[in-house]
């Protein structure tokens, strides 16, 4: 069951790679939150209930509701155009994403460690690198935020892989998640929208040395 969920998770990445609309990204993020909710539920069922409840709450409330809502609010508030405006055509990014996944599978295959459920590893790393890729290849600043969210999800998955042994780390991950997201989104909603009207990355490249 978990595997099915995780595979769906990967598929969401592919979808994100070819999506054009920012709104789609947000929906995908929400969907990922929901997926994670179930994964957590199945994976961490035997850790102490309070902690489990906390984690579940975080996934469902924060990841799949609060952040998406907030992002869409930002879209409206700064009336950002709906297009994602990638540097590369979707086809290429799809290929690259596939490449990322394949490479990760190979790496996971290369690693000899029976303690680890490989699929967690694959999903986590693919998500991480896909998120970085997303940040690197989209033109809008807000897509950076979304990319970061994707990375967070990836890290979350990775933390789940060892969640049974060290729930502490899962909590830390959540803390990071909330902390960083709040910080970034906070800055974003407060300032960037106001100061830079047309929120394009090139607006934010004045601090440089040439």
């Amino acid at each position, binding site marked *: 069951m978990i595997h099915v969920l995780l595979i769906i998770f990967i598929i969401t990445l592919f979808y994100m790679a070819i999506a054009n609309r920012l709104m789609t990204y947000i929906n995908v993020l929400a969907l990922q939150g929901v997926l994670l909710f179930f994964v957590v539920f199945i994976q961490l069922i035997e850790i102490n209930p309070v902690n489990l409840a906390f984690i579940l709450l975080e996934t469902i409330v924060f990841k799949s509701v609060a952040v998406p809502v907030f992002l869409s609010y930002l879209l409206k508030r700064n009336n950002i155009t709906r297009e994602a405006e990638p540097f590369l055509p979707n086809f290429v990014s799809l290929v690259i994403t596939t490449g990322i996944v394949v490479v990760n599978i190979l*790496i996971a295959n290369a690693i000899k460690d029976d303690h680890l459920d490989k699929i967690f590893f694959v999903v986590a790393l693919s998500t991480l*690198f896909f998120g*970085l890729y997303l*940040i*690197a*290849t989209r033109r809008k600043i807000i897509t*950076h935020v979304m990319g970061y969210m994707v990375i967070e999800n990836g890290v979350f998955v990775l933390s789940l892989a060892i969640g049974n042994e060290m729930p502490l780390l899962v909590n830390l991950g959540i803390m990071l998640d909330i902390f960083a997201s709040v910080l970034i989104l906070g800055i974003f909603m407060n300032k960037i929208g106001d100061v830079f009207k047309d929120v394009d*990355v*090139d607006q*934010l*490249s*004045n*601090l*440089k*040395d*040439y």
Partner: protein
Amino acid sequence: MNLIYLFALIPFAGLLLIPFLRVKGQGLLTLGLLTINASISGFLAIQVLTGESINLILPGSYVTGPIPIRIDALSGWFMLIINLIFLTGGLYGFSYLKAYRLRRNSISLHFAAFLLQHASLIAICVIQNSFVFLIFWEIVALTSFLLIIFENENPVTIKAGINYLIQAHFSIIFLMIGFLWVINKTGSYDFQAITSYSASLPGSVSIVLFTCFFIAFALKAGFVPFHTWLPYAHPAAPSHISGMMSGVVIKIGIFGMMRMLLLIKTDFLTVGYLILTISVLTGLYGVMLAIIQHNLKRLLAYHSVENIGIIGIGIGIGSIGIGSGNVTMITLGFAGALLHTLNHALFKSLLFYTAGNVYQSTHTMEIEKLGGLIRKMPQTAILFLIGAIAICGIPPFNGFISEFIIYTGLYKWLSGGTMFSLLAAIFSTVGLVAIGGLAMICFTKAFGIIFLGTERHSLPVSCKEVRFIQLLPGYILTGFIMLVGLFPLMFIRLLDQPVSLYTGTSHVFDGLQNHAFEALQPITIATWILIALILFIFLVRKYFLRHQVVETGPTWGCGYVAPTFKQQYTASSFVRSYSKLFAPALLVKKEEELLEGIFPEKVKYSSHAYDKVERWLIDPVLKFNKNFMARFVFLNNGKLQFYILYGIIFVLTVLSIPVLYRNILSFIEILKFL
């Protein structure tokens, strides 16, 4: 011991006090402290030169380890030179800087650096701990930099200063590598480790080690091709600093070289030939470029290069002597080198001081613009003349004595040996002779154009002789020049100890068991006779002329009725035939417009001398480096995506490299299999 602590304390006292004094006070304080320090070190130096050597070990700190202080005769000799030049330089600077009394900050910085430099130069002479040596070496570089950039509003000055600073830093790099090598092998900072280690090395390797140090010291001393900082630093610096720079600071390079010759046990024959070759080239190149300079201080700077070459020839002869076990050559070579070090310090600083006088009363260093100064500033003229004659190595002054000793060394070398050594000897002789002849062209030009004839350019009305206090250092130096020229044996006796460090036999000169200096006695007599003769003939001349009519008229223009000052020979025209002959070796950029038509327009002609070594060795490297570095500025381009990309790239590379490496290995295996 206490003396040494006192010595170390004094400059810091100066540093603390100077900023709070008024300009005059600063000068007096500096002079006072300088005198104290000079007398302390001079006292020690005299002690070691009269035979006993001072060894003591300061505790040092955790990083430095124990600091051995060994004052031997070599240190003593250089300490005396340093003190002499610093005292006169300080005196001259004191009066020279009066013209700048409004710039109090610069002056206090200047004086502080001055004190510090003196202390650290002395320290370099005595300290034998490689780490501490490095520290003082760099302090000297820094302080001389601060001293050079006294006229610091001028970007050119700053540029010259930084040029010097960087080249000095290169010398540190080479020193550091050499020292690190020894430390790495022996684990000791003490200089004696160098001796023990190099003794254990095969000759070829120890030559590499020596070359490391040689380059470091050559950068400081300004051997070709490491001389390029001199012609910029000297004109930029105030005159007393230029004088001290070429009098002392570049000599510290010579000191290092001779110290290393004492410390490193290596194949002295090869080293000797190396040094000799470079020195001859240095001497010739220096003077050849000196002739075509139009800026007096640049000219003098190139002459420092030349004289370093002459000193180097002496050192080369000496170490060849060590290599071939020829005591006479050792004695003559090193004695000549050491004496010429003193002599050059004397007349070169004298020349720079007089140049300073000229600068302060005419506000220019362009030889072409000067002329007829001898009537406006006769004393300066006479001092300059004496310096010029001395630097050309012409009797009856000191330059002749040291060059004569070096010549004698060469001819002793020439008296036998293999074909190769004989050829080397004869060509070094030719080199030395040519250097002398060229130097004469150069200084007849310098003196003749600057001080003689009539003004080639309207001089400021204020142009007059400087105050006596400013001439005094010049007179003191002249006194010493005379002293060395007329009583050479006195100084040769002082050289007994230092030279015997190299020969190994103590008291080489007592009874002169090698007939190295027997010629000096008659030379002295001859010099006396010469002077007496000149005086005598001059008196006779007076006697004959006393009844005759002596009238003055215009210079005989060969029938031309309206001669103007413009028709005089200029510096460029004086050396024109020379520069045409030597054109391949020189690099003179000319801009000229030719006369045309029956009623020609106003035309102009200008020529700038540039240094071929710099053009070929320095500039391309800098250019390449600049372009190469400029290729990477895209890195920090302000785009967030790139910044993150760097992270990804780094991680992926580090992850993938081992994999690739393994694959490549296996691939190679396959190839091998095939």
